[in-house]
């Protein structure tokens, strides 16, 4: 009993510590803001098993700050992580606001964590941000699967509804009377469209913007 209470306390402390960790924004050559120092999210109890599913987990970063011409200046970045179940390696893709795409193959979870810890993401064009702005809002969503996986599952589901209805062994023999089949396929399609990517985990941070030299 005492041991369980102790573990719960440690876990609570770890979560609290993680919650206090926030990334930071830095200037990158006076032209871009770079997001770095990401919290150790990969070891999160929700995220860690998700990364092992083999589905494409996508970290979507959205950054907004007061714009130089009024309104808001928006930016962001995207990270895709897919675990290859056959080769047991991680394939990661990094897409930054500059349009640059970087792909890497990481051989282990440790390498993945190391890659994550060292990440520097160009997320915002500094020229579009108001010079006096000192804060930016950063939102992070983890989408559990990719768009193509979503479409594939939707199609598979709507097809399997009709197939299972007329041929429970799943061999896909169509019924001569198509009316009922069509109706069920429509029904299946309507249900299938509810399969959508919804964020598994979301974080919102308000970060300090580094001071910039104002042009004369």
């Amino acid at each position: 009993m005492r041991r369980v209470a102790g573990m719960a306390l440690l876990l609570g402390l770890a979560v609290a510590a993680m919650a206090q960790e926030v990334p930071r924004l830095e200037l990158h050559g006076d032209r871009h803001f770079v997001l770095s120092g990401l919290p150790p999210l990969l070891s999160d109890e929700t995220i860690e098993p998700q990364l092992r599913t083999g589905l494409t987990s996508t970290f979507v970063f959205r950054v907004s700050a007061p714009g130089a011409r009024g309104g808001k200046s928006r930016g962001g970045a995207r990270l895709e992580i897919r675990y290859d179940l056959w080769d047991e390696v991680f394939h990661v893709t990094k897409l930054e606001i500059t349009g640059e795409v970087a792909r890497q193959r990481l051989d282990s979870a440790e390498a993945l964590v190391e890659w994550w810890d060292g990440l520097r993401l160009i997320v915002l064009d500094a020229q579009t941000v108001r010079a006096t702005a000192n804060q930016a809002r950063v939102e992070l969503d983890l989408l559990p699967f990719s768009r193509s996986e979503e479409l594939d599952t939707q199609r598979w589901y709507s097809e399997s509804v009709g197939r299972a209805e007329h041929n429970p062994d799943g061999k896909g023999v169509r019924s001569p009377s198509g009316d009922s089949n069509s109706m069920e396929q429509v029904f299946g399609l309507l249900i299938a469209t509810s399969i959508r990517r919804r964020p598994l985990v979301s974080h919102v941070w308000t970060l300090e913007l580094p001071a910039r030299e104002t042009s004369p």
Partner: protein
Amino acid sequence: MKLTSTVVALVLMVASAALVFHLFQRQLATASLAFGFHPDVLDQLELSLDDQKRLAWVDPARELEYRSRFDSLESTVHRLQILDGSRDALLRRYNTIVVALFAGLVVLVTLTYSIRQASQARRLAGIQRALTMLAGGSNNIELGERKRDTIGRIGAMIEETSRLMARDRRRIAAMQNLTAWQEATRRHAHEIRMPLTALKLELAQLRDGLDAGQQAELTRTARDAMEEVERLGRFAERFTSFARLPQPRPERRDLGELLRDFVSTYASAWANLELELDAEAALEADVDREMLRQVLVNLCDNSSLALGEAQGRVRISLQRVQGGIQIDVKDDGPGVDESIRSRLFEPYVTTRSVGEGMGLGLAISKKILLDHGGDLELLDSSGNGAAFRLTLP
């Protein structure tokens, strides 16, 4: 009808509920199959994935085959994982569709029921109108009911009844016409035969007188013969007056003054009648004075003849009403016989014996009032006397 509608509505409701249940049951079963909710399914599939990898390690020559199976299994696992992660959304969507389907069916049933009820109400209103028309004496009513349900059968019966009534009316009218002609012929024959008989006798006497040389007797007989000829002439005059009734020439006249003149002029025209007048002052109308006087004379003639030897009174009243003027002529005689009330204004209709009148007076009077744009009606024909109403625009 109400029972039928209720039964139809109930059948539709039960069918709808059955359909929804059927869909629910089948789709739930399908959904459960496709979801693979049970964790063992995923566990077994993941074990199979590991097996393919091990097999490829043990038998590298068939690695491609195992890799292919692995990829296929992996796809299935991924799909099931995605479905499992979307389970709540899928069930919400499923419930929404089922509820919407059920609501749609209920709306459809309600709409169908309402339309049916409205249709029946409309058809019943048509039946009601047709019955009113039938009661009003309309012929050949066409409802246009094509359905063979209860309302349709009632409609068909009303149409058939109206056709039969029309046929019977035509028969009755033909028979009445025939009867009228028979009566007219009888009266004409009598009116002609009487003076002819008298003429025949007078001529025989004239022949006998010629033989005897009785001058005085000859003169008297010739005078009598002339009277009979004049009687024939008067008959012919009366007979043709109906056929050649002229159109009225109306002039603006004060009806009160016209009636006062009539009462004053004809005060002693009928020995057994006393005329009274109750007239408002200055009520003007466009009338043909002579024709209106003829109508009043006809009515008074009838009253006098109906009283016979008894003394009576004719009361004439004048009043303005909405849309025109009314002149009521009421006597205190025996009234109009029940048997001829409905045909009173037809020519040759009279209760008098043959030789006492042609039965044309009221027909002529009615025609005169109709030509004025008004009417002549029998108001009260009870034992307290007869009352006629002259209406003028």
